């Protein structure tokens, strides 16, 4: 392919990078007194990115830059969702950041850099590009967690995140190098064909696979590689937690798809077993530990661990049904996470974090509407219809049952019953208990509107989940079959 086609398919990434550089400079002039112009510029950039992504969409799978980069429907859908997620994160967190003096251009630019990292990861088609994207994402994240320089908790969690994240990257690189040693290539598709042809060193490949799965497990935060998740979620400013908990999971899903479902597809039997163990442990430990939490951010952290376990359940089936159910799961998970953390930020004020469970007592009496939206979010996370969270679990369980893993399905539903308890406890606090504080809630038009949109979206997708399910299925199908 010639240079023009190459650049065309990477249009969104190039545009974003250009805009980041432009905003870096422009902010020196327009952002002196207020950061609002920069903020608006960032939103405009995200909007234009989505236009570029839609405009550069071509049917089928386009592999460019000497098989380093791929542009297919799945990557476009995931990227569009990532833009939406980052934009929602910025809207939710503006007032929160202003109150804490963190509403700076650094925050916004780091968010954009992490977005760029995600986009590279989503479109990567070579182990090197994958790693490049992952590191760009991770380094921006480390910096964002540590953005609150004076806070000891934030610094500690940033340190922890950095050390464990670097370790995970090391594991991943080590695994990649072994795969390179075994197959002689780093190209996702070439690895797959050379394994399928039987041209490889089996021992080396098996070691490589173990390291790769361990590295992935670190990044996803599944048990037993989950230790960093609660601390980072708890320590980081809520706005950053929201970002860590949402959009990167979309990229992580693409990462898992490219490495496991495409490159290492011939070894599916082996990694399925590993994922099954990781998934069950995550679902069990995530749901059980969440019960003991009194801090809602930590509770969400453990709930994320459990959710990632369900994601693994979808992936381990190794067929298109399973992958698309996992994609649907990750999309709905991101929506619910945005809503959950959005609620925390909405209820937080200057000098007050609404991150203790007790802060939700009697919310129904302070604001019936917010309590209702939170009720929807909680039931969705617990997987109770008619919210979208149910269909996510439904699709995953269907693919698990279809491949005959009945025991996995039964264990998963039994632990989701345990999980239902701590989500119910939040509902109980909001509806059944009397409020502790009668501090009026500051409604800001932008966040109130967004949380309404977010909460009702969960209900709407719960009533009519068909379209989103089909979109996920089609995009996974296309990216796996058409190359």
């Amino acid at each position, binding site marked *: 392919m010639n240079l023009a086609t190459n650049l065309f398919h990477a249009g969104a990434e190039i545009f974003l990078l250009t805009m980041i550089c432009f905003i870096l400079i422009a902010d020196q002039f327009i952002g002196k007194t207020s950061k609002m112009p920069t903020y608006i510029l960032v939103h405009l950039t995200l909007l234009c990115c989505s236009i570029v992504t839609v405009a550069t969409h071509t049917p089928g799978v386009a592999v460019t830059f000497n098989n380093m980069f791929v542009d297919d429907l799945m990557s476009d859908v995931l990227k569009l969702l990532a833009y939406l997620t980052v934009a929602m994160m910025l809207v939710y967190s503006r007032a929160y950041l202003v109150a804490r003096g963190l509403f700076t251009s650094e925050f916004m630019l780091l968010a954009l850099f992490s977005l760029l990292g995600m986009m590279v990861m989503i479109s990567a088609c070579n182990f090197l590009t994958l790693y490049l994207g992952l590191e760009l994402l991770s380094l921006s994240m480390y910096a964002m967690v540590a953005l609150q320089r004076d806070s000891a908790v934030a610094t500690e969690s940033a340190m922890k995140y950095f050390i464990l994240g670097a370790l995970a990257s090391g594991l991943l690189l080590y695994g990649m190098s072994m795969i390179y040693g075994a197959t002689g290539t780093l190209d996702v598709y070439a690895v797959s064909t050379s394994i399928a042809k039987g041209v490889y060193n089996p021992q080396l490949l098996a070691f490589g696979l173990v390291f790769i799965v361990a590295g992935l497990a670190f990044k996803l935060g599944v048990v037993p590689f989950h230790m960093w998740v609660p601390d980072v979620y708890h320590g980081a400013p809520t706005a950053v937690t929201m970002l860590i908990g949402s959009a990167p999971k979309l990229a992580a899903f693409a990462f898992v798809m490219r490495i496991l479902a495409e490159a290492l597809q011939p070894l599916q039997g082996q990694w399925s077993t590993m994922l099954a163990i990781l998934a069950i442990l995550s679902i069990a430990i995530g749901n059980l530990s969440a019960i003991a939490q009194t801090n809602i951010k930590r509770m969400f952290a453990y709930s994320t661990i459990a959710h990632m376990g369900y994601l693994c359940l979808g992936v381990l089936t190794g067929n298109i049904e399973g992958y698309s159910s996992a994609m649907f799961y990750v999309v709905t998970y991101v929506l619910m996470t945005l809503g959950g953390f959005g609620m925390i930020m909405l209820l937080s004020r200057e000098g007050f974090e609404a991150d203790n469970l007790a802060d939700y007592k009697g919310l129904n009496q302070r604001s*019936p509407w917010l309590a209702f939206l939170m009720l929807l979010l909680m039931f969705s996370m617990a997987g109770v219809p*008619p919210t979208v969270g149910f269909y996510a679990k439904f699709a995953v369980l269907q693919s698990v049952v*279809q491949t005959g893993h009945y025991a996995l399905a039964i264990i998963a*539903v039994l632990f989701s019953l345990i999980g239902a308890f701590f989500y119910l406890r939040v509902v*109980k606090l909001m509806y059944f208990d009397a409020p502790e504080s009668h501090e009026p809630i500051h409604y800001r038009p932008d966040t109130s509107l967004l949380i309404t949109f977010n909460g009702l979206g969960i209900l709407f997708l719960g009533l009519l989940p*068909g379209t989103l*399910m089909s979109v996920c299925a089609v995009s996974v199908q296309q990216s796996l079959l058409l190359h």
Partner: protein
Amino acid sequence: MIFGFPVLSVAIWLPIIFGVLVLATGDDRNAPLARIIALVGAVLGFLVTIPLYTGFDKMTSAMQFVEMKDWIIRYNVHYHLGVDGISMLFILLNSFFTPLVVIAGWEVIEKRVAQYMGAFLIMSGIVNGVFAALDGVLFYVFWEAMLIPMFVIIGVWGGPNRVYAAIKFFLYTLLGSLLMLIALLYLYNQSGGSFEILDFHQVPIPMTAQILIFFAFFMAFAVKVPMFPVHTWLPDAHVEAPTGGSVVLAAIMLKVGAYGFLRFSMPITPDASHALAGFMIGLSLIAVVYIGLVALTQSDMKKLVAYSSISHMGFVTLGFFIFNAYGIEGALIQMISHGFVSGALFLCIGVLYDRMHSRNIADYGGVVNTMPVFAAFFMLFAMANSGLPGTSGFVGEFTVILGAVKANFWYAFAAATTLIFGAAYTLWMYKRVIFGAVANSHVAELTDIGLREKLVLGILALAVLGMGVYPLPFTEIMHASVNDLLVHVARSKL
């Protein structure tokens, strides 16, 4: 559909839309408006279900008023509604109770009126959906969605121990439902990609799988019925729920579980049902006899009626698993009758509780002296609960016993003890509460029921008597469907 008018959809969504409207009236400053909208919605909700009865074809066992639209194309899930002789009466029963519940809570509920009324209306629509759904996923969605409003109703307006009761209720029922979900998914794959319940009825399934599926459904339905030994959530939930919540729980929610046995367990796994009939009958008889004895020892009126409900529902499951037309029809009549009677009894207890704020039998005595009209109504319902001929309670119990005699004399013998125990616990409670000398100054100050309460209890009294004297309008509806079910269940699906 009837003349292109989607009766079932309206029966489901009209109460839900009114429920949302009621919620939208906001806080308690608009309480009168919320009450009026709720009443209009509930009455309209009942009126729109009447064509289901008048337009019903009694001759066929096929599904009627069918509506079918694509819903989730990817999994071949349809928005498929329809009723037969088994499910139609429950939609009527449910819609009939909604206005009564709204009226019963008219003045009694003072805090967060809009949310209370809204929750009941939304639940009414969802329950109609459970009975009308012919698609496995649609059924499951309604089935689970039902939990949310009930959870809130018990937890917000319930008694002192409401939080414990609400969470216990939710987790107990969720446990059963989740296993049912796995069974539904298995059937989906087994049937080659269809979630239609009627397709499930035709899928051949090996015996081991049938047994496992039977138990998965059993967990879901037995918890809701509730059957011994998974009944322990019911007394807690009943005692803590507000009056309206208890009425809906007893009159409607318990029926959903029993309905599940007829719609899912028996036709989908007929061989397992036959193989495990002894087990089911055993549990049913334990419920009838043992729970009847437990009811005898209760000191709390609501708990007593709750245990009596479990005992009566034991009759229902007994009727199902003796596999003859008397048994199943008797059980269906028993379900409807129990809806009227237990609903009425909980309303009666509610009447007393509103005045005395106690459900303790020992706090009462001699109520007849101050509330003669109420005592008369209560008497009628107490008699119906003990199965007096001429009331609806008799028809169902008698028919089930008749069916049980055909199956095995000793089943009938054990079941018939309920006529003694039922009479004992109900009438003994009645005697202690109503008769005797005025027990204390609070009882002496009681005022008799007003027009609103007379209206609610009067309607139910008519229903109980009418069904007891002339049950034909109910039984003729179910004949065709029940016979068809029996033929179906007799065929092996191995």
